[in-house]
């Protein structure tokens, strides 16, 4: 574990720089440039709000904000998982030529996703003001919730990153699982209203994305306190996942160059 922190200390500036570089190159030659970072999530929100608000007649209060909070959290999780599976192979050039702790690659990637999530969060705030969502200080709890979301995604990401090196078709599997989680997380419907009984109980507790999303909405939209017990449990699980991930990477990272 000590090795992990010395590595982070040594390489975090590289991670930041390379994240910036990636963001810059992403918008380097598109006409609307960085505006895409705002346009894209905003349009998705419009689509979902239209379909599920008007077509399926959803009466959840502050529905647009509701959808947007879900999307913000989901997009981050989705990007982390999809990004990590092929991360080593996509960085072939780097991995076969220099030594770099492999989770630094994930760290750097995650910075770009955090940045995009930040933009998405800002749009959410704008939307909440627009919809006159009553303000409470409970909103500050979104910070620990996002930290848990990050740790959880990072832990899973490291593990997937490792197996993604050797299992060619892992990406296919993660696509399916992600799609399932997407629909089971209540991004554009309220699990509390739509589902009943065991399924609701299970989804809101055993599906970390649904759970965290639900907590986010509680603190941001409805001025409620989050479930501290649930947050503590998922925090614990995330830490365990991170430790497992770090162990796996430390044990195997120097063999990746032989495989890819």
């Amino acid at each position: 574990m000590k090795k992990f922190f010395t590595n982070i200390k040594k390489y975090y500036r590289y991670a930041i720089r390379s994240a910036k570089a990636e963001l810059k190159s992403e918008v380097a030659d598109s006409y609307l440039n960085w505006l895409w970072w705002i346009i894209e999530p905003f349009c998705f929100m419009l689509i979902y709000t239209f379909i599920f608000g008007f077509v399926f007649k959803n009466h959840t209060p502050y529905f647009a904000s509701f959808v947007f909070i879900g999307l913000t959290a989901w997009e981050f999780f989705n990007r982390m998982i999809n990004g990590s599976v092929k991360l080593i192979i996509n960085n072939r050039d780097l991995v076969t030529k220099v030594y770099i702790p492999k989770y630094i690659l994930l760290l750097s990637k995650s910075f770009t996703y955090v940045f995009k999530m930040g933009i998405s969060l800002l749009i959410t705030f704008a939307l909440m003001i627009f919809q006159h969502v009553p303000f409470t200080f409970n909103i500050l709890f979104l910070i620990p919730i996002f930290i848990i979301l990050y740790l959880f995604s990072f832990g899973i990401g490291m593990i997937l990153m490792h197996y993604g090196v050797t299992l060619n078709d892992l990406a296919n599997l993660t696509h399916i699982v992600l799609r399932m989680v997407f629909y089971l997380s209540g991004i554009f419907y309220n699990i509390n209203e739509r589902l009943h009984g065991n399924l609701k109980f299970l989804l809101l507790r055993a599906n970390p994305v649904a759970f965290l999303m639900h907590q986010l909405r509680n603190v941001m939209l409805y001025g409620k306190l989050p479930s501290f017990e649930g947050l503590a449990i998922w925090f614990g699980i995330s830490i365990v996942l991170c430790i497992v991930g770090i162990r796996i990477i430390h044990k195997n990272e120097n063999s990746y160059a032989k495989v890819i």
Partner: protein
Amino acid sequence: MKKKQNNKKNIAITVTNLHIAYRGLKKTSIRASWHKLKNKIDIYEALRGVSFEVEEGKILGIVGQNGAGKSTMLRAIAGIFSPDKGHINLHGRTISLLSIGVGFNKKLTGKENIYLSGMLLGFSEEQISEKIDEIVAFADIGEFIDKPVKTYSSGMYSKLAFAITAILETDIMLIDEVLSVGDKKFREKSYNKMKELISDDKRTVLIVSHSLGTIKELCDEVIWLEKGKIVDKGPVEKILPKYEEFMS
């Protein structure tokens, strides 16, 4: 090359009983790994028990046929591979494998790529800021340094890449095939720079090359590898004739 004849030799690299095999992690699919336990995976041993020491300031050449394990060994010493058995001790020295254009992002400018690549080689931002003018001057690609790398010709690309590795120096340098990049003028310049770099008293260098002329000119000692084992090692004058005879 006469060096300080201290009684206590300063060892820069110690390699003991190095074994490297290509196996274990192997590309596979989920379906295939289902039956994996039954099937034995074929193991290719690239290095089988190599041991040697290099003194500080020495220039060591590594010769051998294709597939002898030369590049594998360099990469292991650079820390890119982990040994399956044995140890590599660098006695706390910094090391880099001289390779071209690591971590370049083609959409960014040359200058930005100098930082990215340099930090990957283990240098801090401050160290690179100190050296950046020197790198830019050596690369000698004019105003292109502020343009995206994708607009470079391949010659300019390698010039910039070489300049980065040549100016940002480490205690130990590993060179896989002496680089010949750019036009004739730059090639001469880079060859001279390389000579200047590796003849530094403090710098230890390992060179892999198929060009015996280069080895003869640059190296103090030679290791002859064949099929993952050391056939012979010693001063250049002693080993090279034997190797030449073997190869002919």
